[in-house]
């Protein structure tokens, strides 16, 4: 290991160069979020917060968001492990093309994913139509609008994110450790359990955090697909624009942000 400590320079230069970032974060993140929290806390008796946490639509929306995001995060990470490992560690023709294909949906907004879902699994979707043509029976009609369809759509936009996050973690994973385990007599399963998974644990956790956060904030998928099942961002939007109920929208936004941050913190415990 070569010593790469930075040459001693003025830390004032550093502070000055970071100043725009500091100012921006303060103005566009800290201030709005603090005001959001301030509103909720200065509200006598925390009425709006209590309203959100009381049984009913808002709480259901929050719980739905948490559940759906957790399911999407877990599902996408589980499904992403093998492809991420293959992309990171195996050499075969077409690997880069596969990676590009998998990363394409990363730029899709939720509404686009929702639309793709309707194209495939709407009442007149490609899949039910194809199945009807092939089997003569109508199946999966309107599946896009069910909770299962919503989950599939969340998986669709979380999977590329999960694969890319895990892949870059796996690529940093020293190849020699696997050789060392083999030389010490460990078979494939033991290597996976005793070396692979423990070493991958931080990456798996941070991938869960990334996908979970993205799902919690997502709004477009539910906007297009959600029929009866509601999620927190959708309720925030409804309260804000449909009911002018800024207090509840604010409390809901605060709860959404706090629960996302809390889960993120929880997942990063023990990191580094």
């Amino acid at each position, binding site marked *: *290991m070569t010593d790469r400590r930075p040459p001693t320079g003025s830390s004032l230069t550093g502070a000055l160069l970071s100043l725009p970032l500091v100012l921006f974060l303060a103005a566009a993140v800290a201030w709005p979020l603090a005001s959001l929290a301030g509103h909720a806390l200065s509200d006598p008796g925390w009425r709006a917060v209590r309203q959100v946490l009381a049984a009913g639509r808002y709480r259901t929306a929050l719980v739905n968001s948490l559940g759906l995001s957790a399911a999407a995060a877990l599902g996408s990470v589980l499904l992403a492990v093998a492809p991420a490992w293959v992309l990171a560690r195996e050499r075969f023709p077409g690997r880069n093309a596969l990676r590009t294909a998998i990363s394409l949906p990363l730029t899709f907004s939720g509404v686009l994913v929702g639309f793709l879902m309707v194209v495939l699994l709407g009442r007149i979707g490609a899949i039910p139509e194809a199945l009807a043509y092939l089997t003569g029976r109508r199946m999966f009609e309107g599946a896009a609008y069910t909770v299962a369809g919503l989950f599939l759509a969340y998986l669709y936009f979380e999977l590329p994110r999960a694969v890319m996050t895990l892949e870059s973690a796996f690529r940093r994973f020293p190849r020699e450790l696997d050789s060392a385990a*083999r*030389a010490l*007599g460990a078979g494939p399963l033991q290597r996976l359990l005793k070396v692979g998974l423990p070493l991958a644990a931080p990456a798996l956790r941070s991938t869960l955090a990334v996908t979970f956060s993205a799902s919690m904030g997502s709004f477009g998928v539910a906007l297009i697909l959600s029929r009866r099942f509601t999620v927190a961002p959708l309720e925030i939007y409804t309260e804000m624009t449909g009911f002018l109920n800024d207090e509840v929208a604010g409390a809901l936004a605060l709860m959404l942000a706090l629960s996302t941050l809390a889960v993120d913190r929880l997942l990063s415990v023990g990191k580094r």
Partner: protein
Amino acid sequence: MKVHVEDVSFAYGREPVVSSVSMELPEGGITVVIGPSGSGKSTLLQLLCGLLHPLQGQILFDGEDVTGVPTERRDVGVVFQSYALFPHLTVRENIAFGLQTGRRRFSLRSSRRRPTRRHLEERVWDAAALLSLERLLDRKPSQLSGGEQQRVALARAVAPRPSLLLLDEPLSALDARLRRTVRAELAALLRKLGTTTFYVTHDQEEAMLLADHLVVLDQGRVVQAGDPLDLYRRPQTPFVASFLGEANLVEVEALPSGPSPVVPVRSHTPLGSFVLPGACQGGWLLVRPEDLTEDPCGTMATVLDSRGMGPHDRVILLLDTGTEVLAHFSSETAPAPGTKVRIGVRTRRPHFVAHRD
């Protein structure tokens, strides 16, 4: 365990890395493979431990073909250049790792049982004691110095008492001073263990110190193998001569007519006349710097440069015949630059490296 490598070849794509290498690792001895970078020595190690599989040839452990046997069933211990310590495990857990795996000999003949808990602790402790790691057992690798990491890697490799120990430049990540002390300790330890050992290095001193059997590799081929001192004294190619220590290679012209091949002939060289093998078709006279000495009857030479190195002085001389040579003189007698000296060769029968076709 006796290991035979028979006509083994390996290539990355179309680039040959190891080309029909054959060698024999003496049982219980240390075989050191030395060669410049890219000579295929690490690849050879990976072929021996089964991380790579040869395209051609066989590897035999005690006469049994293990060519297709996966690494985990070969009963080998490996110390990697980067150590490859498991960062998520403590020193204790790293050392215990190989004792808890389903390590099996490639044949069921000597299959080992998993040790009991107490037995396991004893074995870890033994390995740790062997390398003075007792006080570090609960640390994580990231909390260790380079030298400590090196010892843990070794302890981990030897703890399961493998039949073959493979070390891939284990000292190259250490700084020069540490390398020298560790080198001596390592030599003592490996001798004490008495395990058949395959050791890869590019450092000549390390090789001389450790090797029972020395193999010089160049461009994927074995150039010469044998007793280390023998290789030093009697290299068969200029490459081996200059790779193992400093060498003066003085060109000797072929004799115009070949007398009887068995009759030694005298040949004149810039450093004097010597008895050479009769079959000589030309070649080089190998004179190690320490073999040159001041000799009142010797060849006239001018001192170009002289520098005290401690144990000896390093003197560069220009012979009057126009050849430049390097000599190691003892410090008391070393001449100053610019002076003229007469030099000669200590031995009457220096080594002759013949031209090869």
